[in-house]
């Protein structure tokens, strides 16, 4: 059997099968169940890797590849309108790689971290359901399918956030999360219904080909972007994010980072693929400016303003937190702002030249590449920091930074991992965060220097924030109450080590990542005609 042909379906189906087999295996033996879950996600990662290899090695004609998979029918697509399809291009598989790395690390880390909890059958079931929901969101080519996977992701992750039901605040965070994500998902469904009512299609490529940008399309675009931005945690829709990130178990938080980034992927897909044909064509006259302005510029500047707000609010709130995980969560809000800054710059950079034809500024492409590159860097850096926070909770049973101090004496490896994560998330060279942030700074500087200055200043403040954490948790005199604290178990160290190694690798060889993975992903997003041609044969 030729696995890459079936890979898009298998990537979603294998975790789903595993999720429902887990409680049955859990009745036999706990250790067997843990091995089974790790095995399932390992197999899944291998399938993702195989598919990624097939997509990123270009075909003989040099054009980017798009893998399509039709469910329940013959593979030759005659009319994609009524079929449920998976359309996997470089961007989708790029996100899938991130998700599978995070999930694989999470299950290894859970082995020791969640050992003392009861009801672990349900925990692993939900983790695997979350995996299949996230991966489905990233690979699907059908709007309604996207909604279904969005809801699977939010239900399973809300249940995971409230997994420690003996803590009131965890349950509260879970409730807030499910409330916000349900509202978001319902408005996504409303937008999908508007699109379906007009064009009688749900497939992204078909919709993208047919879309006219009528008034209803505008409403649908607004609903989609606002709802998905809320799920991605853009200020001022970010308030659920610190709540649920800080009160969930550390493993769940890392998986949640993946779920949040899946929503970000939704924004990218909708702006660049679904509306990709129309946003750059339609102009509108602004009365008081007496100038033609592209619609994509309007959306771009709106996104940029919100992104700058996220960066500032996230950093400033992070600076005064005393709760370890809440602090990292606010820093994660700021990091999401950087990604949206890249996306917004790409949208705003489209303009007119002297002959009044539309041109794409070169720094726009760099901004988008930087934004996409920053997705993987943010996932790894923030993930590593959350895992370190979990390790400290494991030993001290406390989240408050005021109660900690001098932990570096007893937990050497954790300290090293935290230092790596700290420098990477603050964008210090030579770690991975710097490469992507540099691309964002340089491109936004050409759009508007103030944006770049704010971004750089806030990046410095992130460093200051984490230096505070480093001092108050790891430095200082050896406190007598932490005399017997030991280094965390090996499985947790191993999980953190995996992420730290990838961070250092990307930091030292940024161009390998950029040339082979990030650039094809950005190209897949911007080259909409190619997408339509590959999926439905329209040129």
């Amino acid at each position: 059997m030729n696995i890459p042909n079936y890979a898009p379906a298998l990537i979603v189906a294998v975790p789903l099968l595993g999720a429902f087999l887990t409680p049955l295996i859990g009745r036999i033996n706990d250790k067997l169940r843990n091995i089974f879950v790790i095995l399932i996600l390992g197999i899944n990662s291998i399938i993702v890797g195989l598919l990624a290899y097939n997509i990123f090695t270009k075909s003989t004609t040099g054009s980017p590849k798009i893998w399509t998979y039709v469910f329940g029918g013959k593979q030759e697509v005659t009319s994609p309108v009524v079929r449920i399809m998976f359309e996997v291009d470089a961007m989708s598989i790029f996100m899938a790689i991130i998700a599978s790395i995070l999930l694989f690390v999470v299950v290894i880390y859970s082995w020791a971290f969640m050992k003392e909890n009861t009801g672990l059958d349900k925990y692993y079931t939900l983790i695997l359901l979350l995996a299949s929901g996230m991966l489905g969101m990233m690979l699907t080519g059908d709007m309604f399918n996207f909604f279904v996977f969005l809801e699977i992701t939010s239900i399973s992750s809300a249940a995971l956030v409230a997994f420690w039901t003996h803590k009131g605040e965890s349950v509260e965070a879970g409730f807030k999360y499910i409330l916000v994500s349900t509202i978001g998902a319902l408005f996504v469904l409303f937008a999908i219904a508007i699109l379906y009512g007009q064009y009688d299609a749900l497939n992204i490529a078909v919709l993208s080909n047919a879309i006219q940008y009528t008034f209803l399309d505008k409403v649908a675009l607004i609903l989609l972007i606002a709802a998905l931005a809320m799920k991605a945690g853009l200020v001022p829709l970010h308030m659920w994010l610190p709540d649920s990130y800080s009160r969930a178990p550390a493993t769940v938080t890392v998986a949640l980072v993946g779920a949040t980034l899946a929503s970000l992927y939704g924004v990218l897909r909708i702006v660049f693929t679904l509306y990709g044909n129309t946003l750059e064509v339609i102009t509108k006259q602004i009365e008081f400016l007496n100038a033609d302005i592209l619609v994509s510029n309007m959306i771009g500047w709106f996104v940029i303003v919100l992104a700058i707000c996220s960066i500032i609010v996230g950093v400033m709130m992070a600076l005064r937190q005393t709760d370890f995980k809440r602090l990292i969560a606010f820093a994660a809000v700021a990091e999401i702002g950087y990604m949206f800054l890249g996306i917004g710059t790409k949208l705003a950079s489209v303009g007119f030249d002297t002959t009044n034809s539309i041109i794409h500024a070169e720094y726009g492409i760099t901004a988008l590449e930087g934004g996409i590159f920053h997705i993987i860097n943010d996932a790894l850096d923030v993930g590593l920091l959350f895992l370190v926070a979990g390790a400290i909770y494991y030993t001290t049973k406390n989240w408050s930074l005021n109660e900690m101090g001098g932990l570096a004496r007893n937990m050497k490896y954790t300290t090293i991992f935290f230092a790596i994560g700290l420098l990477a998330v603050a964008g210090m060279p030579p770690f991975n965060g710097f490469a992507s942030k540099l691309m964002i700074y340089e491109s936004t500087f050409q759009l508007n220097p103030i944006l770049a200055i704010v971004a750089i200043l806030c990046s410095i403040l992130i460093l200051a924030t984490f230096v505070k954490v480093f001092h108050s948790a790891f430095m200082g005199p050896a406190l007598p109450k932490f005399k017997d604290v030991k280094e965390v178990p090996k499985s947790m160290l191993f999980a953190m080590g995996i992420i730290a190694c990838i961070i250092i690798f990307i930091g030292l060889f940024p161009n390998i990542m950029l040339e082979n993975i990030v650039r094809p992903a950005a190209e897949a997003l911007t080259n909409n005609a190619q997408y339509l041609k590959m999926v439905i044969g329209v040129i």
Partner: protein
Amino acid sequence: MIYNIPYIAVVCLILVGLYALIFKRNLIKMIIGVTLIESGVNLFLITLGYRKGSIAPIYTNSPGGIMALPVPQALTLTSIVIGVAVLALMLSLVIHIYRHYGTLDVKKVGRLKE
């Protein structure tokens, strides 16, 4: 005009749901607001597939004539199934919240802030 009434109802349902979510302080009432929005969206989907005088889309022994579009109905069913799961999860979380906090007031429940 008469065929626009479902769309007006959709907007009303969604607005009432949002009103309940924003201004009601009881968590159970907020959940009712979520279900109202959900029913509004479901009604919208169903209305999209309906044509004047159409019959249910069952092919066996059908009397002929135009049929309602079955795809939105399938979508609605899926959305209802998801809605049930969300509702069950929300209610069980509310039970736990009441156990820990002893109140359902949304202002007093919001302990995680700043």
